[in-house]
């Protein structure tokens, strides 16, 4: 599960970066936001009891 959690963080960082780069491109920004919604879900589905 640790490896999955690391990948989720990578996706999150990439999606945030795409959003920042979107520069007024609504379609790109929106789709990056949609990815971030699913990042939220992925985090919710893979919780660590240690955190």
């Amino acid at each position, binding site marked *: 599960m640790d490896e999955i959690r690391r990948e989720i963080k990578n996706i999150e960082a990439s999606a945030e970066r795409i959003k920042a780069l979107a520069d007024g491109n609504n379609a790109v920004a929106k789709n990056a936001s949609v990815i971030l919604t699913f990042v939220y879900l992925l985090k919710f589905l893979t*919780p*660590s*009891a240690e955190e």
Partner: protein
Amino acid sequence: MEYWNRYTETMPREKLEKIEFSYFKNLFTYGKSHSPLYAEKLKGLEVGDLKTIDDIKKVPFTYKEELRKWQENVDPFPYGGLLGVPIEEVSSFRQTSGTTGRPVYVPESYESWQWRIEAWCHILWMAGFRPRHRLFLPFGYNVYVAFWEAHYAAEKLGCEVVPGGALDTKGRVNKIIELKANAMAGTPTYILNIAQEALGMGIDPKSFGIERILGAGEPLPEATRKRIEATYNCKMFDHIGSTETCGFAGMCEAQKGLHIIEPFFLVELLDRETLSKEVAVGEQGVIVITPLGRRSFPVIRFNTNDVAVKGPSQCECGRTSHKLMEIVGRVDDIRKIRGVLFSPKAVEQLVRSEFPEIAEYEIVVTRKDIMDEITLRIEVDRKLGKEQADEVAKRLGERHKIKTNLSCKVKVEPEGTLPRYDLKAKRFKDMRGDH
């Protein structure tokens, strides 16, 4: 055994509870800073006061009446003080049915809706719905949440979804046959109505080829569940949820109670008298729910007023979540009649398990002078003659007395007299006025 999320569904209880407590604290903090309702309600209580999971009992319950109050004349319209995100983030509107008062308007952001759908995927997968299923949803969905969740979740897990709105019952029977639908979801009442309609058209519902049905919107007594299974030659599953809380528990292949979808929901089953203690396995308790990841409409310790029997957290399916063994009904539905506690569910259980000849029924409670009277209005199978119908009525009266300790009148009505429902059935009418 296949799971939707093996990681959380088979997680040891201790870990699961730790995670739920952590999610609860996150929601507590979020609610205090984003929801006017909770900013007010949780004044004087800080997240640091919640040191163990037992400390969540320090957090006051949320009642439906409060939700209504915080929406009346409070901006932003129509969500008022319940909104947990900027209104620009709301992407869909739902509302409660308003059966017990003014409806509650529920805002869903894209994130919260997807969170809801994910919880529902657990329910459908657990009930054996798979990408091979062509799922027919016999209902015109609208402002109520009913069937929207089923639609989106089934689509997400790979089923082929057929929206069956804007058709009458006969049209739906024809569409099921035409498309060879092999799965359905619906209120138990309407699933039975479809079967009755098909029989009237000279079609045996067993010939549909429906493999699985998920019950929604109404309690599903075991007798009704088995009757539907026999009628369609299929497997019938139950789930429970509401507009405010989302679908929060569902039935697995073992068909023994409903698994709570953990850690999406923290569900407490509290003793009915004091609402302060978690009941033991086998006991009845009031369901109190916290959806742990929904931010557009944060709801913390929502007292549902529903009563359920607590089940064990061991199941032959291997899931470790707590279970609700039986949904007894709403606290409001349980009435005192001639000094005896009466649950309409007991009548449904009786009718569905022992009286296949009864096509529809209704319970009416009236008061004559100081005496309460129960009348069971029934419609029987069209093939029965008057003598046979009277015999069914007599037997029902006798069995009712044995099952409930209350005598009743039974009135046989002509076919088509009693209302048919495609959403929540309202078969219990208490006309006494002061109950």
